[in-house]
C-alpha cells in the first residue's frame, strides 16, 4: 500500500536576500519553520535546512530499520541513540550521510550489533533513496 506525505514551502525574493517558510506538513507535526540561504550554507542560526531535514529523515528511518532487524533476531532494543550528519557542498551537492548509533541491547555482542547496523544502513528506505549519490557510513557501539 502506498503512503503519501506532503509539505508546503513558500519563498519571497532572491536566494541570498530572500527568505522562506516551511509552512506546513501533512501531519501537522511541525511548522511554520523559517528558512534562509545563509542559515543553510553558513551557520544555522536556529533555522532548519534541507540537509538537516534529510539528516532527520535518515536518522529516523535507520533507527526503525535497526530496531526491526534486532527485534526479528530476538533482541528488542531497550534504546537506540542515533545521530545522522549530512554534508552539503554548495555547488557540488549533498555528498555524505554518516550515522552514529549507540545501542542498549541485551544479549548481543559488538559484532552482532555492528552487523545489524550495517544491514540497516544498506536497507532502510531513506538509505536506498540516497545510495549511489551519497556516501553512506555507520559507526556503531553498544553501551551495555
Amino acid at each position: 500500500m502506498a503512503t503519501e506525505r506532503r509539505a508546503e514551502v513558500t519563498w519571497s525574493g532572491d536566494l541570498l536576500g530572500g527568505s522562506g517558510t516551511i509552512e506546513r506538513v501533512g501531519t501537522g507535526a511541525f511548522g511554520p519553520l523559517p528558512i534562509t540561504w545563509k542559515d543553510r550554507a553558513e551557520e544555522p542560526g536556529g533555522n532548519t535546512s534541507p540537509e538537516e531535514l534529510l539528516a532527520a529523515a535518515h536518522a529516523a528511518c535507520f533507527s526503525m530499520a535497526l530496531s526491526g532487524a534486532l527485534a526479528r533476531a530476538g533482541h528488542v532494543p531497550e534504546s537506540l541513540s542515533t545521530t545522522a550528519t549530512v554534508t552539503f557542498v554548495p555547488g557540488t551537492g549533498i555528498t555524505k550521510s554518516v550515522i552514529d548509533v549507540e545501542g542498549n541491547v541485551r544479549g548481543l555482542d559488538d559484532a552482532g550489533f555492528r552487523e545489524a547496523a550495517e544491514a540497516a544502513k544498506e536497507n532502510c528506505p531513506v538509505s536506498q533513496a540516497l545510495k549511489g549519490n551519497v556516501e553512506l557510513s555507520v559507526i556503531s557501539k553498544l553501551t551495555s
Partner: protein
Amino acid sequence: MPRVSREAEVIWEGSSAKGRGALTAASSGAFAGLPFSEPARIGDPEGQTSPEELIAAAHAACFGMSLAAELTRAKAPPERLTVRAEVVIDEVEGGNHRIVSSALTARARSRIGKDEFRAAADAADAGCPVSALIRGSATVSVDAALEQEVV
C-alpha cells in the same frame, strides 16, 4: 565553497512495530523531541512526522531556493513562490518499502515570460541537490507554473 554539515538526533525505544522514537534537529534546534513510529509512518499519521514527510519538506525547501536563484539569474526574483512536495513510499517486491516518487508543484508570482519561467524551473530541478538525490532511485516530477497562467 566550504562544506556544510547538519545533524539530527533520534532516541528510539523498543521494537519497530511497537516502539517509538523522538527526533531533534540537533544543528539548528528548529524542532526537538518530535514523536514518530512505524505504524504512523505507513498508516494513519496521528499527527506524527515520518522520514518521508521530512524528505518532502527538504525537497520543497531545496527546490524553492533553487527556483528563487534561477529566477533571480533571469532578472525576475520572485515576489512569492509556493512549492508543495508529495513523497510516496510503497511496498515493492519482497515486501520491502521503497521511496518511489517525489512530486513537486510550484506556483510563482514573478515578472517573467512563460518560456523563460519554464527554463528557470527546469534549471532549478537540475540544480537542486535533493532532486538529484531522489532521482537516483525514484521519480521526480515538477509541475511549475506562473500564478497568472493558472488563475
